[in-house]
């Protein structure tokens, strides 16, 4: 049982780490703010979700697991609100969304 829980939790933590790294790579590489918001949202939901799930499996049936899931629940509510506020503020500040250049202009 302990071995199964260990394997499950390490798999979850590695998957969460993968999503965090890929999402942050997207934040670094995407062309404009709105695309970067998309990548950052994936970091918040999938990456943090898998990491906290793995850690709460490690914690077992205890108050600690409840607290870990509580942190994740809080992130789950605040991340879309923050993302929405950022996109709205950027639009009001007249940040132009990135458009793919027409085929003739491509280098």
């Amino acid at each position: 049982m302990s071995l199964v829980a260990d394997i499950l939790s390490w798999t979850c933590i590695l998957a969460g780490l993968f999503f965090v790294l890929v999402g942050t790579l997207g934040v670094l590489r995407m062309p404009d703010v709105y695309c970067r918001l998309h990548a950052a949202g994936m970091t918040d939901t999938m990456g943090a979700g898998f990491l906290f799930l793995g850690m709460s499996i490690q914690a077992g049936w205890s108050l600690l697991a409840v607290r870990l899931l509580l942190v994740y629940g809080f992130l789950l509510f605040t991340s879309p609100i923050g993302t929405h506020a950022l996109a709205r503020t950027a639009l009001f500040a007249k940040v132009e969304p990135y458009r793919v250049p027409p085929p003739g202009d491509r280098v």
Partner: protein
Amino acid sequence: MFAVAAAGILVAMAMAMARALLGPTVFDRVLALNTVGTKTVILLAVIGFLTGRPDWVDLSLVYALINFIGTIAVLKFFEYGDLGRQRPGSREGNR
């Protein structure tokens, strides 16, 4: 194993900080700082497991609250130029 997770999160934080330094607009910087804050929340919980003192999870919860409120406050400041005023022509009327 938790050390691997902490190292990966630190690498991700470094990449997000690079975006915060490079960012062409101020919103890129706010987004990058929000991402760094989320990673700090995760890193605090991981450090709790790494050092065998799970009380760090409470710090992680508090940091999530502060990060969210800070992001919203900075965005509100950049949208209205003020923390207490409404946009002119807002439908909610004057107070």
